[in-house]
């Protein structure tokens, strides 16, 4: 029983990370129809940025946080500006290769800057772990869950109540119509990249203390984020959130009850099941195609 509860807690914690990664991917897709295979690398940059600014330079945590998110967002904007926008008639396959190429470049840069050895970071606070019915929760897990909730909540409010957010939603629904009503779709795309890379960095920052940080940690994280986004329905904010949590929980139960080696496979098995059974994701609305 304690075991099961422990799996649940760990699942929610890791699931929140997946949720944040998935939200970043999903929001970018919604606004620009771009699937960014370099998204995991933004998370890696987030973690590595924290390693340098907080771990090595001993900057105060909030300052390190802000600087890291800003820095990674800058990288995201440069990436959009110089790699995505110049393509006039983007074919999905070319975009896949360009973003994969970018992920290779980002990983290469990280390898040169931070080396190949994994780096560990201490938890954000030195509070002791909490025990509930025999299961242990480390404080960092709580921070991760809180961060995911705050991020998803503020994005929700942003899309619902701000003009900028509404304009982005309009762009996502129908780019041309939005453009005709005077919404600058290029700026909206840039804004989406900003949100996406920023949230990627946040995911990286919050898991940095609970994982070994290496230059190639982003690939798996990015792919798992995809699975989560697909499970919830590509383009949906809360779908991505729920997909991330579900994936994290199932993974921890799978690792605990079946085998830890197959943990990584669970995400992809789940992905295939979702694609076969309800391709639009768990929370998709049914829609009819018109010929």
């Amino acid at each position, binding site marked *: 029983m304690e075991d099961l509860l422990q799996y649940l807690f760990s699942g929610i914690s890791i699931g929140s990370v997946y949720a944040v990664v998935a939200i970043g991917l999903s929001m970018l897709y919604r606004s620009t129809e771009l699937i960014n295979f370099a998204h995991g690398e933004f998370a890696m940059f987030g973690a590595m940025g924290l390693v340098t600014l907080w771990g090595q330079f001993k900057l105060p945590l909030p300052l390190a946080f802000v600087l890291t998110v800003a820095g990674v967002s800058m990288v995201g904007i440069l990436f959009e500006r110089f*790699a995505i926008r110049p*393509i006039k008639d983007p074919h999905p396959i070319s975009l896949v290769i360009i973003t994969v*190429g970018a992920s*290779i*470049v980002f*990983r290469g840069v990280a*390898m040169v800057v931070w080396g190949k050895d994994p780096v560990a970071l201490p938890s954000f606070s030195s509070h002791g772990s909490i025990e509930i019915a025999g299961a242990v929760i480390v404080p960092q897990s709580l921070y991760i869950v809180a961060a995911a909730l705050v991020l998803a909540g503020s994005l929700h409010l942003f899309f619902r109540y701000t003009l900028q957010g509404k304009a982005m939603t309009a762009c996502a629904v129908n780019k041309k119509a939005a453009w005709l009503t005077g919404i600058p779709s290029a700026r909206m795309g840039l804004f989406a990249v900003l949100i996406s890379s920023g949230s990627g960095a946040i995911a990286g920052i919050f898991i940095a203390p609970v994982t070994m940080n290496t230059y190639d940690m982003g690939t798996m994280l990015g*792919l798992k984020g995809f699975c989560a986004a697909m499970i919830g329905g590509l383009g949906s904010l809360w779908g991505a959130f729920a997909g991330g949590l579900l994936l994290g929980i199932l993974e921890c139960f799978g690792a605990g009850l079946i085998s830890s080696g197959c943990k990584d496979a669970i995400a992809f098995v789940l992905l*295939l099941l979702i694609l076969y059974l309800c391709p639009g994701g768990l929370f998709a609305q049914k829609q009819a195609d018109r010929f």
Partner: protein
Amino acid sequence: MDKKLVHNLLFIAVVAVTGMVVENIYLLQIMTFIGINTLLALGLNMLMGYAGQVSLGHGAFYGIGAYATAYLSGTLGISPWAALVCAIVLSVAVAFVVGRPTLKLSGYYLGMGTLGFGMIVHILFREAGSITGGASGFVGIPMLTLGPLSFEGGRNYFYLVWTVVFGAIFLCKRIIDSKTGRALAAIHGRENAAVALGVDAHALKLNIFMFSAALGAMAGFLYAHFVLFISPDSFGFMASVKMVTMVVIGGMANVWGALIGAVVITLLPEVLHGFADHEMIVFGLILMGVMIVMPQGLTQGVIERYARYKKRA
């Protein structure tokens, strides 16, 4: 004489002479790898270039071919040639089972589905240690022999691989230049119109998926018996992406494009060894650069640029 036939014979002659002239074992090895990669690109090109279906998990079939022959001929000790047949049959069977539901998807969803499949197979290679040797790899793959002929030397293997490549190009051309090829192009162009004309799109996609899986397994077989040691990382996500890249860089829907893509993607890392730690960065930048400047692939891109240059001159 037929112009196409002349081109084909010329190509075969160039490869044959190259094999005879080159003495450097390292160069022969590189060219053998080019041949193996051409097989991979040819198979995927049939699926992506002609049928218009993306696969981000084709590394799985490459791996299935390699591991099947490794296990059958290495562990069980049966003849590698019998193992080849089993590897291809297994790969095609897997393609059938996976392709049936997956090929109903389209666009990014198809990409993600095949990606998921590729990752699952990759994880199986890593975790089924008793059969595959796990993450540390499989040692003890026997060398290929055919009667008195040994494929130990670089040159014999070079000829073996390229003979298979010629055969594969021949097969691909026959399929393209047939009723099936026309129907594939029709599906690629306008799927609903093709369906309305009675093309069973799903069955045809499945056929070509299985065909490309067979070529992938063939390449895996040749790879395994060439390097004699395989590990899961050769068949993971990056392997699948590398295959897609070869097809797209070379230019889709073009048999020779597959060859050019294979040449570029095989040679690039070798050339970039000089950059040492910066190799990854340069490789990624070249990849992005080519796609940004010539999204239609190098073959088409260079031809168009040359035509424009000539017009101006």
